[in-house]
């Protein structure tokens, strides 16, 4: 398949691996930010092929994983109400809240529907004027433009029965948070290609300069990831710390101005809780006051619902790159995708789920 096969070419991958081996002279810890990259690394077994000097640690870039428990509880509370059609991307439906998930709400009679685009939810609002249609607007900067567009569209059409439960997080503030921790181990970043497709490279320049870490904007196929690692290792070995763009076929330096504009029109930057980590300042997007009538949290008055994360799960440390799934005593025993104990096992893009799915043989043997 064009635009995929060439980035999975085994010969090209072997050449990149040989070059990484020839370049590396000492141990380096590199974090891939995005859950999609973690998933690809595990699926293609890239970690097994890298020289032992390179340790990949897995970042917090899984929007499903970092959605706070209380946000899920609020979604469940809204979805269970009569005359509500609750819509969501598929992989949020299985994420457990404090006591149930959205599939269980549906089984109990709630109208919970999976959509592939927020505009489908707007269409439902048009189709069912007698119902409240709520969209669970989850994600990083990647899904924010589409979700913002849906809210703006509903406002323009005067669809008072459409609202969004916004749970948007921003990558750059999370990277700043990780780098600021005294326990930080990360020496170089593979930045998330899709986020940069929207946001561009600007936010990374000050981070690379202030914390003296190389940041290579990287794609999601094996060849992309290996090239991203090679560029990072080259910088590390030379003592450089620049922002580099491996994913040039998709990422422009200024990102996508039209997408950024619509995000800015509908959302404003706000403090945000990250499941497993806690509140990170200015790391999320909230719906602006101008669109408050389409803000589900306000419309359904669910902000009083709070939840406490169960203790005993190390997902917060995993999301910060401080430990890895195999080090957790519950991994593959008490905790599995069928019975997740915490954030990183619940989504297929969570680091624990990726290890479980593809590499548990090595971990458990």
């Amino acid at each position, binding site marked *: 398949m064009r635009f995929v096969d060439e980035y999975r070419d085994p010969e090209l991958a072997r050449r990149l691996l040989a070059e990484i081996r020839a370049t590396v002279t000492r141990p380096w810890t590199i974090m891939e930010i995005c859950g999609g990259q973690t998933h690809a690394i595990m699926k293609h*077994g890239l970690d097994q092929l890298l020289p032992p000097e390179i340790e990949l640690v897995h970042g917090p870039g899984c929007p499903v994983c970092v959605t706070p428990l209380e946000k899920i509880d609020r979604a469940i509370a809204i979805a269970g109400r009569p005359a509500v059609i609750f819509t969501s991307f598929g992989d949020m439906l299985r994420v457990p809240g404090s006591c149930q998930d959205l599939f269980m709400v549906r089984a109990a009679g709630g109208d919970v529907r999976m959509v592939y685009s927020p505009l489908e939810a707007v269409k439902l609002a048009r189709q069912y004027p007698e119902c409240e249609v709520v969209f669970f607007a989850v994600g990083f900067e990647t899904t924010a433009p589409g979700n913002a567009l849906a809210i703006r569209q509903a406002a323009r059409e005067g669809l008072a029965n459409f609202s969004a439960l916004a749970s948007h997080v921003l990558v750059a503030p999370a990277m700043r948070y990780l780098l600021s921790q005294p326990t930080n181990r990360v020496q170089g970043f593979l930045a998330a290609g899709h986020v940069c497709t929207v946001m561009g490279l600007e936010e990374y320049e000050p981070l690379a300069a202030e914390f003296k870490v190389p940041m290579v904007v990287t794609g999601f196929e094996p060849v992309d990831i290996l090239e991203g690692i090679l560029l990072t290792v080259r910088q590390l070995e030379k003592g450089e710390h620049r922002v580099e763009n491996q994913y040039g076929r998709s990422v422009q330096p200024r990102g996508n101005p039209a997408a950024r504009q619509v995000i800015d029109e509908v959302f404003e930057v706000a403090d945000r809780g990250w499941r497993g980590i806690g509140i990170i300042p200015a790391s999320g997007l909230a719906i602006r006051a101008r669109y408050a009538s389409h803000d589900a949290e306000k419309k359904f008055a669910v902000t009083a619902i709070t939840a406490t994360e169960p203790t005993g799960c190390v997902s917060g440390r995993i999301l910060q790159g401080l430990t890895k799934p195999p080090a957790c005593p519950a991994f593959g025993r008490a905790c599995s995708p069928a019975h997740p104990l915490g954030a990183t096992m619940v989504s297929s893009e969570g680091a624990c789920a990726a290890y479980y799915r593809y590499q548990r043989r090595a971990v458990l043997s």
Partner: protein
Amino acid sequence: MNPVPPRLSCPLPIMDHDRVQLAHGSGGLLSAQLIDRLFLPRFANPILNRLEDQATLELPAGRVAMSTDTFVVDPIFFPGGSIGDLAVNGTVNDVAMSGAPPLYLAAAFVLEEGLPMADLHRVLVAMEEAARVAGVVVVTGDTKVVPRGACDKIFITTTGIGVVPEGVTISAASLRPGDAIILSGTLADHGMAILTTRQGLSFHSRIQSDTAALYGLVAAMLAVCPTIHALRDPTRGGAATTLNEFVRSSRVGIELEEGRITVRPEVQGACEVLGIDPLFVANEGKLIAAVPGEAAAGVLAAMRNHPQGREAAIIGRVTAQHPGLVVLRTALGAERIVEMPVAEQLPRIC
């Protein structure tokens, strides 16, 4: 646009109602009219035509293979087939995976009040054609009508029987180290045809379901190797589920070569867009076989000579290592587990 019915020579008979009424399931006059005008012309055969409460059958000697399945697919018409094709092919394939030629089918229908007669007719025409191709006859059946909303358009349950030839013992518990794992063609066509139709996603070339009856292919395989160890058609849960069932039942391991598994480009494209792994997606016209290593080349050649096996390939082998696990060697030379899916695959957010 839905595909045209396979035969244009059987128009919808003139009915008093253009939609199914509750009374069509009442057992009264309207029920009789429905059976006489819509069902019997499609499936007529000496056993069914007796219209007894049961079919009485003469079976050849041997072990009887029997299988039943319920079909609830939405949409009921999709590129490459309909619920009618699935209802026949799904059950005859389950019978065929024992090595038995499917002989007879029973079919039970649950119809939703309001179902257009034209849709019901189209489903029955598809079943008639699928049964003809598969070489089975429908010998008994039942129809119920439920109020609007109590089912979704039409649900069909079919039960099939066949007789296993002497000397053939095929079982998921019979895999042995050294067996070759053979896949009869491309993966994920049916599941992605359904998913993309349901979501209204259109791609450059339309994805077609692979629904097909597989006994002909099985017979060609058995002709060259009567000692096939295991056969299964990877429907719900996809190839990953079938292979995991094999390793669990036989307490062996399977090693797969990623490069040997083929997926059509348009199907691969849809999987990439939706974040779905083709190994977990349903097929309706493919089989996976475990055959003794020494017979593999012969079986593969026989499969490739058959229309349903042209793209067959040896995708892996059975090993005594890692019992209970299916391990895939990636194109880059690393290894990963192919797990049993936890639940329905859900498209990822990003």
